[in-house]
Structures are given as structure tokens and as C-alpha cells.
């Protein structure tokens, strides 16, 4: 690679034009103070960012795909989500416990945090913005069927909806139903059908045919 920066097909890299918000200033001030007083090191902050960046819906999708393929793992996962995930090298750095709830022909699960934005970060990463907003948080427990319908998910009347509201120390992960027509799929192919939203329970896993949510 040339040391000279010759290509110019991107806009110049500049700092954001908007002045930092109240909380951004507060975060910067506290971070700089902690660094200055040597209570934490810059390396620790970088490490924490790397930790958070390493947790994405792809991690959750691997868990789901393995559970679809390995019935013993599925049983362990449903009995004790934390330890089953630890088998896969996933750590629970935020001291939360994981309960995995399974969608079946008779039960559909939906996750929410009505108090704030508790989310299974160790296995899914950061929550989507809508998950943190009040309309989602209130409607998930008040009118889950209407909310799901807006996501395009119509739940038949004879299927129970279980809404898990995470409030304290437990986080939840939905194990979606394995789509039909995936008998010959390997773990990687199955994981590709498992979206973030399907593990929150607002949609089903993607169908193999079209790759689109139903």
C-alpha cells in the first residue's frame, strides 16, 4: 500500500458539525477525569469497545442455528441459557443471566423492557432504537397482537403470546421456530435465516426461499 493518500473518492473526514450534546460533554468530561486520575486506562476503554463490538445478532444467530441442529444443546439452552451459551465461549460480562424462550406451534414470545432498555447485549449487541422508545415499550405489554401486526407478524388466535418484560437481572432471547424446507441446511445456512428481530420476537425467522420475513 502506498504511503501517499492519493484517492479522493470519499468526502473529507471531519468532526461532526453539530455541537456535542449535554450528555456527550458529560461523558467526555468524566472519561477524561478518570483517565487523568489514572483510575482507568485508555486501553481499558478500547477493550470495552471491542467487547461491545464483538456482540452482534450474528452471535445470537449461531446459538439459534446450533439449537435447531443439536437437540441436546437445545435442551440445555432452554434449561439454562447462560451456561449453554458459555459452552460456546460467550461470556456474560454484564452479570446478567439468560433465559431462552422458545417459539412453538402454540406459543409466540415477544421481548420488551418497559422500564428502560434492558436487552440481551451479550448475545445480540446493542438494541435497535425502536426497542428503546416508549411506543414499543408500552404497546408490547398492552396490545402485543396489534404491535406484531405492524411488524407484519400475524399471530393466530389459538397461539398464546408470552411477553417477557426484563426488569432486573435476567435477559431473554427468543428461539424462533425453524423454517420449513431447511432439513438439509448446515449451521451457517440456518444462521443466515435468523435475524435480530426474530430473536426479539417481532418477526419469525426468514424463509429460505425468498430471504424475506413473512
Amino acid at each position, binding site marked *: 500500500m502506498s504511503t501517499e493518500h492519493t484517492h479522493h473518492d470519499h468526502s473529507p473526514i471531519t468532526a461532526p458539525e453539530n455541537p456535542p450534546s449535554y450528555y456527550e460533554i458529560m461523558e467526555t468530561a468524566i472519561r477524561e477525569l478518570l483517565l487523568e486520575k489514572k483510575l482507568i486506562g485508555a486501553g481499558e476503554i478500547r477493550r470495552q469497545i471491542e467487547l461491545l463490538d464483538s456482540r452482534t445478532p450474528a452471535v445470537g444467530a449461531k446459538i439459534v442455528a446450533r439449537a435447531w441442529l443439536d437437540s441436546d444443546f437445545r435442551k440445555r439452552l432452554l*434449561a*439454562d*441459557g*447462560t*451456561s449453554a451459551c458459555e459452552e460456546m465461549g460467550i461470556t456474560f460480562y454484564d452479570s446478567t*443471566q*439468560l*433465559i431462552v*424462550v422458545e417459539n412453538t406451534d402454540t406459543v409466540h414470545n415477544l421481548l420488551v423492557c*418497559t*422500564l428502560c432498555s434492558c436487552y440481551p447485549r451479550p448475545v445480540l449487541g446493542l438494541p435497535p432504537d425502536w426497542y428503546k422508545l416508549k411506543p414499543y415499550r408500552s404497546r408490547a*405489554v*398492552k396490545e*402485543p*397482537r396489534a404491535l406484531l401486526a405492524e411488524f407484519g407478524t400475524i399471530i393466530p388466535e389459538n397461539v*398464546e*403470546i*408470552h*411477553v*417477557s*418484560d*426484563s*426488569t*432486573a*437481572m*435476567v435477559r431473554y432471547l427468543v428461539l424462533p421456530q425453524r423454517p420449513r424446507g431447511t432439513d438439509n441446511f448446515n449451521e451457517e445456512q440456518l444462521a443466515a435465516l435468523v435475524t435480530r428481530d426474530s430473536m426479539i420476537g417481532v418477526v419469525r425467522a426468514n424463509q429460505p426461499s425468498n430471504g424475506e420475513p413473512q
Partner: protein
Amino acid sequence: MHTMMPIEKRIVQIVTGPGETALFKSGERVRISDRLPVGHYRVPRYIRGKQAIIESVIEPAAINNEEEGFGRNAGIKLHYYRVIVPLSELWPDYPASSNDGLHIEVCENWLDLL
């Protein structure tokens, strides 16, 4: 989370300390307290005073994070329970015939046996 051995397999003479043994069992009916303490308590207002069924005991006992949030944790642990509140119990306009339910974890000190 750890699953406890069935009772018949445990060593009989073991006496447990305060808070170590869960007060409630799955299937029992409880009422969620209708208290209004000041602060950020982890029991949403919309479930306070409602009846619920214990779905499962969350093992092991854990720090009462409400107390911890106020810096008052003296190492006391209590059990959390996953409880079920029917949505028809929560909301008057929810179809009474529906089996849809709210599943939520509540700390032992917010539950009373019915």
C-alpha cells in the same frame, strides 16, 4: 443459572441461611405488592397489586438490586421469580378468553402468597 437437585437427592441435615431457600414454588399463586417506595424500583407500576402465578424460581438467589442501587447492599441475597400475569388481568379491555400473558421477574420481597 443453576438448577437445584431434586429434594430427595439433597443431604438432609443441611440447614440453609436466610434467603438461600426460595419461599415460593412454581405453580403457586401470589400477589405483587402495591407499594410506592421512592426511587427506581424494578417492579413496573402496571403490575403492582396484580395476582400472578409463579412460573419458575430463578436460581441461585441474587443481590437485591434495588437496595444495591441505593448503595445499601449488605450482601443479602433473595430469590427472583419468573411470574405470569394474564394480560386480561392487567388490562380491562383485553379479551377475557385470551391466554396471552406477561412473564416477568420479580424479587421475593415484592411477592405475597395468596
